[in-house]
């Protein structure tokens, strides 16, 4: 098994945003829109952000930070990059929004723009569009966060026939204001890495967010 290394790690919980262990933002109020607050707090300029559902919004924000020090601009085509994500609630948060547009027969105006986001893997697509990532994209649904599954997915993602050099991999979950994101940028190159990618490290970064709640 080839060694892999963590180059960037982003943790988003219900009320905190952390990048490589540094606390960047804390939610100002319980009733604020946390994804929008983070977008403004990070001073981003990407108008399409406001069209996204919450799952895409938090995935997009995590990817912005994880790709910050990648050394090439978002516009550079990245054929040897992949985006592999997992969660447990799929796109349920947005499914509920969509259901509300078709539930009432007397006020029946199903929204195409909401429907588009009733697919969990759209978040991998949004990240790929933003960073011109042309390698593998995939989305898995697991009962709960598990470092071992992440490790399996990374292992397969780096199999030689795929020609992947670097990947965004992690857990991106959002349901009814409960946000649980842990996104890594990893590669097989140890240079400038934070640490080796091991189950213990993955757990440590995940727990770091849980404890600070």
């Amino acid at each position: 098994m080839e060694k892999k290394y963590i180059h960037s790690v982003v943790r988003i919980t219900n009320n905190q945003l952390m990048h490589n262990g540094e606390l960047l933002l804390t939610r100002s109020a319980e009733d604020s829109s946390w994804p929008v607050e983070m977008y403004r707090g990070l001073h981003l300029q990407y108008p399409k952000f406001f069209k996204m559902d919450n799952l895409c919004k938090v995935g997009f924000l995590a990817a912005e930070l994880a790709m910050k020090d990648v050394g090439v601009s978002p516009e550079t085509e990245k054929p040897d990059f992949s985006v592999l994500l997992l969660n447990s609630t799929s796109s349920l948060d947005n499914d509920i929004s969509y259901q509300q547009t078709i539930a009432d027969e007397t006020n029946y105006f199903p929204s195409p723009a909401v429907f588009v986001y009733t697919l969990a893997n759209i978040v991998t697509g949004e990240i790929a569009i933003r960073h011109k990532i042309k390698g593998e994209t995939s989305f898995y649904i697991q009962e709960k966060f598990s470092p071992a599954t992440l490790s399996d997915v990374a292992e397969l993602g780096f199999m030689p026939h795929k020609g992947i050099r670097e990947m965004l991999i992690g857990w991106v979950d959002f349901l009814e204001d409960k946000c649980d994101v842990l996104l890594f940028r990893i590669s097989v190159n140890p240079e400038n890495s934070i640490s080796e990618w091991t189950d213990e490290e993955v757990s440590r970064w995940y727990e770091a967010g849980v404890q600070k709640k």
Partner: protein
Amino acid sequence: MAKRVVITGVGIVSAIGVGKEAHLRALMKGESGVGKISYLQTKHTDIPVGEVKMSDEEMKLLLGIASESVITRTPLMGKIALKEAMQDSGITDASRVAFINGTTVGGMEKSEKYYMDFFEGKNTDYIAAHDCGAGTEMIAETFGKFDFVTTLSTACSSAVNSIIMGGDLIRSGRVEAAIVGGAESLSKFHLNGFNTLMILDRKVCNPFDAQRNGLNLGEGAAYIVLESEESAKARNANILCELKGYGNACDAFHQTASSPTGEGAYLAMKKALEDAGLNPEQIDYVNAHGTGTGNNDLCESVSIQRLFGEKIPHFSSTKSLTGHATSAAGGIEAVISILALLNDFVPGCCQFQSPIEETGLMPVKDCLKNVDLQNVMNNSFGFGGNDSSCIFSKIR
């Protein structure tokens, strides 16, 4: 050296029948299973769909499941297809086998049916059955305990991505065998959604035709049993063919629309060819994604032209027969591709009349028989720009 991955069994349920024999017959005759909605309760009765021609009750009866048991339509179809695939392969012990299920809509058709009941505390057992993962578990439990079970959800390319994951697991030596594919039932939820995207044809869809006017949704389930060659040989299994190569790429263009250059599709097919160690001219048939929408069929045609140049292989979309079974589509079409390969025929785009002006590509219209097929390619593309392609080859 990566292990060689072979196929030792297939199982399939779709609008054109239950089981591979039924599919073989319908494909050869070009019989479409697309028609008026009769099982899904909806007021959109003017939208034709490819329904599996069995009620939940009939499926329960076939499977020997008690009529009152809580199970949604997706796992019912999944169980039928999985049973056939397992029997076909002769695998009886699931403990060394992975099960990877592609699905996206989950138990939606029951959640929407019982939605108001839930508030009154009725039929609440179906809430837990809503999850995509719950459906996978219900299918998996038919055969005891699998070594590894996961749900893959990448919209309409889910099932081919599950084939890719299974191939990877076997090549890397992680498992000896993997049952891969997908299952998806129609729901009002996504019927309405596709309807608002204004891409549903009011007639039987007509992929790759200049006059194509959208897709027909379908449903079903299909699985293939992937196995390392050693494992298959060691247990004297009947090896059907080989999973020669595969690839996935991201179009990175738009959430739903394909790029005009067909970049993602082109990259996926190119990767699959490279992975298989084949040249484009060695592909004898492409079972295209070919949904029948203006955008997909044009972009896929462009990508086919980019990859194959002047020598376009036989290609067709079988979605005018089965409908577009979303997450299950890639599995259904993988089994169809394998049936075509093993029986040397090319199923047709039965509705086809005139080629798309921009490309002039001519798909196979009527089923071609007695064609010598060595390598067939199966394309499956999903929203999110998620494009996949895999290649099945005869073992010589």
